[in-house]
């Protein structure tokens, strides 16, 4: 038996290839940088915030940002109706949003992926049962369903997150099931069965790792949906409760001052907009880089 090849230079690793595709999409790269800043801010908010988010300065109610008449550099982005520093509250708000995103996506993807894999391998009747259940969840307007759930569970940030996770989960189930069904007929799965792999092993060790690419993309996009839905629930008074410095709740609290003090409404709104936009851009870039169908030769 002759040796197959000499030790030749190898093609680049998948990670490098992924990065070179990702880099082509400029929006995605910008989105990723914004997301990283967002992440760092969330991490070190207590260190960089000038005040705690709950400290009230009774002498400085509704003070405008520093560049406007009446503002001062003491409160860079002004204060809210209770005299709390806007900048500090926004920085701490990033923590909550990030926290919401991580928890919601973890819950939704964990259960969604497990149910999806089971559905992909299950006998037909069980598969139909699971998928029809998911169709029912999907047929409700998502925010309405979350509202109903929160109304049942009682308004709080944790309950809001559970509700949003439940609403987002069917997307993961469908995606995982589709990926599993296309993978499970491949030869390497049969090969694992011939090698003696049991059902659970085939499902989670053999097939699942090969279905991760679309799930990662969905997770990134769900992250932004989670933040947006949590803000919406907060705005409707069903999510985080005041005085929590959550962006949606901040918006709701300041509703009546919208004409007198633009900054109390606009700034949290901009924060939500920028973070959601950045994550969506990044998610699109991820999809382009991970989706083999779009790969150019």
């Amino acid at each position, binding site marked *: 038996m002759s040796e197959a090849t000499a030790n030749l230079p190898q093609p680049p690793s998948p990670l490098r290839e992924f990065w070179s595709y990702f880099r082509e999409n400029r929006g995605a790269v910008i989105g990723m940088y914004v997301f990283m800043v967002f992440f760092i801010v969330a991490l070190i908010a207590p260190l960089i915030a000038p005040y705690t988010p709950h400290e009230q300065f009774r002498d400085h109610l509704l003070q405008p940002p520093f560049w406007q008449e009446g503002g001062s550099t003491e409160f860079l982005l002004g204060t809210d109706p209770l005299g709390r520093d806007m900048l500090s509250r926004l920085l701490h708000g990033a923590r909550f949003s990030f926290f919401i995103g991580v928890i919601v996506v973890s819950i939704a993807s964990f259960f969604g992926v497990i149910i999806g894999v089971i559905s992909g391998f299950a006998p037909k009747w069980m598969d139909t049962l699971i998928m029809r259940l998911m169709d029912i969840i999907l047929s409700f307007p998502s925010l309405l369903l979350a509202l109903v759930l929160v109304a049942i569970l009682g308004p709080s940030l944790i309950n809001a997150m559970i509700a949003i996770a439940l609403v987002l989960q069917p997307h993961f189930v469908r995606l995982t099931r589709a990926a599993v069904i296309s993978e499970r007929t491949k*030869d390497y799965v049969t090969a694992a069965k011939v*090698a*003696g792999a049991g059902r659970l092993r085939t499902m989670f060790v053999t097939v699942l790792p090969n279905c991760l690419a679309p799930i990662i993309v969905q997770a990134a996009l769900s992250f932004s949906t989670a933040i947006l839905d949590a803000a919406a629930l907060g705005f409707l008074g069903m999510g985080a409760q005041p005085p929590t410095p959550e962006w949606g709740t901040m918006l709701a609290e300041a509703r009546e001052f919208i004409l007198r003090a633009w900054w109390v409404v606009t700034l949290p709104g901009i924060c939500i907009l920028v973070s959601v936009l950045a994550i969506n851009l990044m998610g699109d870039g991820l999809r382009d880089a991970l989706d083999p169908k779009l790969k150019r030769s």
Partner: protein
Amino acid sequence: MSAPILSATDLRRHFEVKSGLFGGTNTVRALDGASFELVPGRTLAVVGESGCGKSTLANLVTMIDTPTSGTFTIDGQDIQPGDELKDKVLRAKVQIVFQNPYGSLNPRQTIGKILMEPLLLNRPEISAEERERRAREMVELVGLRPEHFNRYPHMFSGGQRQRIAVARALMLEPEILVLDEPVSALDLSIQSQVLNLLTDLQDKFNLAYLFISHDLSVVRHFADDVIVMYLGKPVEQGAKDEVFENPRHPYTKALLSATPMADPARRQERIKLEGELPSPLNVPVGCAFNPRCWKATEECRNKRPDMSDGSHRFACFHPENGDN
């Protein structure tokens, strides 16, 4: 010749297919009565066009699928579907190499993991070090380099991947290797490397090969015995030289003459087969080959010919070069 390691008698696999929303069920006879034996150190080739039941046969022998009827024994043991424990011992004796080396290796596992998985699953009593030692030995045996052990499949070419697939199949020290078109996805220059590897391994481990192929020139080189199948039924069966030199069934003869030979001096008049391959859903009455056969008579259109006896068997009423 030593005793057969696997023998199958009248093996059948039928599938029920629903036709339409309210229509009744239709039976697809994917495999309809195959009898053969696999002998250690010898290669049995199964030849035929698409829909002839070669892949069904491979699935039955590897115990991925269970037969509808018929019996087969491996190493003296009858195979009963659903017999879990015995299955596991027997399963290790039959391994398979697939056609497409790009789909048969898990892209997320390193070569080492791929090779050690069968041992991990079937021989848990073997220690981790011993597992790795055996896997590394196997890497060298199939002509790969030791540093390939920790690489992922995407770093290898088609031929190297097929070597890895062969290595994985050998990890459990099987006695039967099912080769499902192992070289038809490979380039000509790589094909010969893999065929030589398979020849060497057969000599070394005294393996019985079930070699499934549509490429008659490869079969002519590689096989010892041949079964020619048409629409789920064997039509001719025997030692390679007899079948290739003296084909008795008209289909075998047509198949041989349709295979292009790489020799421009021998440009021969081909036997032109009229018509298409019928769908396995709608197998013709009588001899399955009769609508395309130039010798078909009333008898062929009504009655199904049985396999003849002897070492060179065929199912035809009007065999070639015979007394007809």
